[in-house]
């Protein structure tokens, strides 16, 4: 590095002074999905006349609030195939972006405390293996040897009977994913516009032709909406009503402790999941609040319930202090599967209904939506997730594998 660079402010992407009058593609939402779409539009299809419009700063929504878990052991073939493709893209993404995303594939354990849970997991493992996804049922003794720091499994109030073990599951640094994708999109020529709120979508003759923003009006060939918790509101700007409700999801971390836990532990019965970050913090999360809201502020009942359940698994955490807690918004669909691709307005593509699993899907969403923009055809991988499925009565129920927010 030349010495003069030490004195320079280095930016990951260029600030853009003003919006152009027209872009081939406008992406609403500067999170992992929107930025991945910009990245793959340039990388795979050479489409660089692209603007990413973000109301706040890049990665300010769900992209920076999720608990960084990546996995592919979903229950439906449609879901598992889709998230597996995403996981494989994540595996190559550090190299692709020339940016260290700190991906640790240290494995993912979903605990079973009942016969019923064991049965569902056995079915999930088989469905996963048919698709070539590493997923297996292991017994309590294997769980104990894999996670020696967990409380004695038989002494728990709800003893652990076994677990679904998903070896390729892991954690990846979410801020780095945002920054790496943003830098790549910027270098390719896409414009990133934080501080730009979309206030309207112009639809003419059943086709989206542009957007109105707090910085002026812009026309577009295609508009992609990737606004997660705010999906209902942005889609309504184009007159599209979605089967979505918006809920609060929370998590917290303890102060850093020495390395003790090198797998992700999930318990659907206890409504809790626990992992240890690279910094040593124990990251603990739970489920969404059942009521809808757009207010991103946490609740005391979450901290109480979640702490109690985490302590059932790791009683020695009782002396650890909480360092910080945060909340984000989740856009939930009735079948716990996303809404992807075309809708009743031409030229408008959706990435919505991500509930608590959006971060896992970011690369494949960007990849497939970019392909749809370039070819005008819906990629086979995302066809089952079309908004139209609710009218055709072809729901893709991921309740069993996605209802616990991990």
């Amino acid at each position, binding site marked *: 590095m030349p010495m003069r660079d030490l004195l320079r402010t280095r930016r990951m992407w260029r600030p853009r002074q003003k919006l152009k009058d027209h872009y081939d593609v406008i992406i609403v939402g500067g999170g992992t999905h929107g930025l991945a779409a910009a990245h793959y539009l340039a990388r795979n299809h050479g489409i660089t006349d692209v603007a990413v419009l973000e109301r706040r700063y890049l990665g300010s929504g769900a992209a920076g609030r999720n608990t960084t878990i990546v996995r592919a052991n979903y229950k439906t073939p449609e879901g598992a195939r889709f998230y597996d493709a995403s996981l494989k893209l994540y595996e190559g993404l550090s190299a692709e972006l020339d940016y260290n995303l700190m991906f640790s594939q240290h494995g993912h354990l979903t605990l079973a405390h009942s016969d019923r849970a064991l049965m569902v997991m056995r079915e999930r493992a088989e469905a996963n293996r048919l698709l070539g996804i590493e997923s297996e049922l292991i017994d309590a003794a294997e769980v104990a040897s894999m996670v020696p720091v967990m409380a004695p499994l038989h002494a728990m109030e709800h003893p652990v009977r076994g677990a679904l073990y998903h070896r390729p599951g892991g954690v990846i640094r979410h801020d780095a994913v945002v920054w790496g994708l943003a830098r790549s999109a910027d270098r390719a020529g896409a414009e990133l516009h934080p501080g730009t709120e979309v206030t309207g979508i112009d639809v003419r003759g059943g086709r989206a032709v542009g957007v109105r923003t707090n910085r002026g009006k812009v026309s577009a060939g295609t508009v992609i909406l990737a606004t997660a918790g705010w999906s209902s509101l942005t889609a309504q700007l184009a007159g599209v*009503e979605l089967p979505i409700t918006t809920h609060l999801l929370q998590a917290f971390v303890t102060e850093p402790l020495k390395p003790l836990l090198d797998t992700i532990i999930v318990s659907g019965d206890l409504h809790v999941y626990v992992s240890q970050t690279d910094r040593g913090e124990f990251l603990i999360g739970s489920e969404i609040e059942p009521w*809808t*809201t757009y*207010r991103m502020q946490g609740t005391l009942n979450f901290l109480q319930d979640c702490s109690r359940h985490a302590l059932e698994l790791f009683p020695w955490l009782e002396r650890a202090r909480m360092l910080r807690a945060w909340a984000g918004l989740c856009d939930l669909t009735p079948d716990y599967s996303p809404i992807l691709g075309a809708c009743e307005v031409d030229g408008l593509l959706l990435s919505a209904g991500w509930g608590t699993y959006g971060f896992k899907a970011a690369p494949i969403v960007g990849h497939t939506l970019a392909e749809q923009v370039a070819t005008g055809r819906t990629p086979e991988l995302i066809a089952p997730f079309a908004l139209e499925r*609710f009218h055709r*009565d072809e729901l893709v129920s991921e309740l069993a594998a996605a209802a616990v927010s991990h």
Partner: protein
Amino acid sequence: MSFVLHCPHCGPREVTDFRFGGEVRAGTGSRPADERALTRALYLRANVDGLQREWWQHRAGCGAWFQAERDTGTNRVLRTVAS
């Protein structure tokens, strides 16, 4: 942010006492005209950021269903009415 709801029968209680029943949808009182209308009624939601009329049940109390008006942007409950 958590909040308190006034059950029309039991008085103010923490939100964890209640079951959320979703936004109140305008019913036509008749059968939906076609399948698309049925699907819309079943699945589509306004999901507003602002004042919302919604269903609640006092699960840990009297068990009654009632309606509340709440601002989903602030979680302020303006009023509750017995159904």
